[in-house]
């Protein structure tokens, strides 16, 4: 039996009141609920406050470069599809530096779960605007206010996403359920989490999110309907939907490779003699 103590980890270096604590707890809860043992879970994280998360729990960890969670996670998954691979990073990490990997990982539908802690700011570097900062968000690098906000969920849907969801650190139980669904989903599961940053985002505070967030569960929203999902993804104002916006089944990237059906690459024999037939072809 896996229990929450199995996921105990180091002392977080986050600010008191940071939304990341609740995300960490939701993640642990999801993993325990799914009875996943820590050594079967791989968390691949980027750089930023969000990227520190894996250090504060237990499991395999690959803490990579800023913006590079997704390719590293995809590589690990291909090498050993037996691993439950969860990529973790911030909005800057994922949509700024890592934007290209985001676009194409969504498209390719790698079988991984991706948590984006969206505090709408670059927190670790002390408060610059991020691609998801609200329009007009004033920071030291955007004294005239931030430019158009990237609608990451709409982009994910447009790019061929198969599981596109939004959670909120202020509702950790709901978030834990989303994470569980994401992990269970075969394919790329994007879970963007509204996460207040008490130090650098005084606009999108916990209260601000709380006022606006409403659950899609129980509404008439059809997560299987692409256009409905696209429409939902446009809601960002007085009301902000949380829950699964879009969900679809299609083959994963890993499904494209017949060799992976034979078992994890990491378990396959390494035998130099295998290439002798290739050498003959050069004769």
């Amino acid at each position, binding site marked *: 039996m896996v229990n929450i103590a199995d996921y105990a980890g180091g002392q977080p270096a986050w600010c008191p009141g940071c939304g990341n604590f609740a995300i960490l707890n939701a993640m642990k809860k999801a993993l325990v609920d799914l009875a996943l043992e820590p050594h079967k879970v791989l968390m691949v994280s980027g750089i930023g406050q969000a990227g520190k998360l894996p250090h504060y729990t237990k499991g395999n960890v690959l803490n990579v470069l800023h913006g590079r969670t997704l*390719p590293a996670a995809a590589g690990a998954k291909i090498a050993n599809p037996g691993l439950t691979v969860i990529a973790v990073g911030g909005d800057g990490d994922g949509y700024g530096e890592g934007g290209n*990997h985001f676009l194409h990982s969504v498209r390719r539908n790698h079988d991984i779960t991706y948590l984006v802690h969206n505090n709408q700011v670059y927190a670790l570097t002390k408060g610059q605007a991020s691609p998801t900062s609200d329009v007009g968000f004033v920071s030291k690098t955007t004294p005239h206010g931030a430019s158009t906000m990237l609608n990451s969920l709409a982009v994910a849907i447009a790019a061929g996403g198969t599981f596109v969801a939004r959670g909120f650190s202020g509702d950790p139980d709901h978030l834990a359920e989303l994470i569980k669904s994401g992990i269970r989903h075969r394919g790329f599961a994007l879970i963007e989490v509204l996460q207040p940053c008490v130090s650098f985002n005084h606009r999108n505070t916990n209260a601000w999110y709380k006022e606006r967030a409403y659950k899609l569960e129980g509404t008439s929203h059809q997560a299987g309907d692409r256009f409905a999902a696209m429409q939902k993804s446009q809601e960002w104002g007085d009301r902000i939907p949380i829950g699964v916006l879009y969900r679809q089944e299609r083959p994963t990237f890993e499904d494209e490779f017949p060799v992976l059906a034979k078992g994890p690459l990491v378990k396959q024999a390494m035998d130099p*003699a295998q290439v002798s037939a290739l050498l003959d072809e050069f004769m």
Partner: protein
Amino acid sequence: MAVDINIMVGGEAGQGVQAAGFIIAKALARYGLSVFADQDYESRVRGGHNFFRIRAGDGKVGAISEEVDILLALDQLSVDLHKGEVSSDGVIIFDSDKTNVGPGKRALGLPLERTAIETAKNKQSANTVALGAAMAVIGYDVAALKSVVLDYFGTGESGPANADAAARGYEASRAGSRWGIAKQASPASAQKRMMLNGNEAIAVGALAAGCKFVSAYPMTPSTTIMEYMAGKADELGIVVVQPEDEISAINMIIGAAYAGVRSMTATSGGGFCLMVEGLGLAGMTETPIVVLNAQRAGPAIGLPTRTEQGDLLFALHASHGDFPRVVLAPANVEDAFWLTVKAFNLADEYQVPVIVLTDQYLASSYATAEGFDLSKVQIKRGQLLSEGDPSKPEHYKRYEITASGISPRAFPMQSAAPVVADSDEHNEEGHMIEDAETRAAMMMKRQRKLEGLKKEISGPRTHGPPQADITLVGWGSTLGALREVVDTAAQHGLSVNLVHFAEIWPFPTEAANMALRGARRTFAVEGNPTAQFARVLRTEMGHQVSGAILKFDGRPLTPAYILAQLRKEVA
């Protein structure tokens, strides 16, 4: 050498220059000759001017000659550009309907396209007609030729059609040949030889070494490595991915290598630029990866299809901060195979990134090679935590501080021990730290690997007389040309020997000192404008070369060029 035949095929991109050249080379290799062939092509798909040069001999051939015995001119431009290179007893084979050779050189005009249409129903096969004619000139057996052509084109429609075309060219040439040339090939041995290019040798080497994952983004001249491996992926049980960019490529292989799988990427300079942050990540997380950089003429886009040795110092110092790495620069197709195997072993044993540095010349040049003895390929994965270890999973330390600097590796799910790898400075458990002591200890731990690595690196090859007036110093793909310079120097009144490096970093200081000890005058011979390797010699062993013979016009260093420069230098 008793036999030394030099053939060039020239034409536009799209005329099948590469195919004709390859078939000729393969046919000569099948005769048991030693063959070397290089390619010159532009960054376009149709038109322009390409050529393919083949040299075959009964001794060991390692470079191209600048004199051509038979020129297969598929277009007028090939005649205009290369007529001057044809030897006095050489011959030009050309399309008598379209091309004008003019006086001054022996020429064999045939209606190449017309014959192609007649035989293969396709004027595209003009190249095959021409090669048939060429093979007749050197007295190659027509049946043997047809079988090479068939092997190349397959048993579908185009195989027999092209075999026919080749035979018609062969007949026509025999019929019309007034010339015949002095140099005639004769089978040197009955033994079959492999013929492959540098990229193929690297790809097969990686497969032999148990590489199971490749992520690479197309970039000339590296692309055929991933293409070859993708073609063999299902057969060999590997996965080849073409991701969105090179950054993704290197980070994917880091993820896969962390998960326990031998992984590589292949690129050229510009793509390598995009990988250098990832290289540092591999250095910091101690993840074994193999990164192939097939150099081309830089900076920036430069000459995309041409050769250079311009990335050496970059490869040695790429990425911020200090961490151990290995840099290997194969000299030829044999090296390409064996050093790729070695690259994977060193990567795993020392948990470092290994850079294999080739260039367009080696990548796309074909050479014959004795079969690679696969029983000699050892797979050394280095210190791995054995199954069941550690007894208490929570005690596993991914970055345990050891005397060798190497910490036993575990893979995720290998045991109950979670494996924590971190790009921040970290403690033995892999978690990030801030304190000075741990930082310093980890830096020293990583640096210590260099001591072990230094012992793994083979010293330079030497060639020629033990004592000579001039010692040439080279590295990487120039070995064949340099050897030929040494072998023919005496004919030009020069006393020359050679010290050549294929394993570059960590620099084999001691062996290099030994090799250069008695040297009187040393000349660095390099394919770049700043004598990059000569700088390494100076930094690593305090050796100052007497001079440098450099080439940086995108073309390979040939024996003739080196000799000419050398004679100027010593004049």
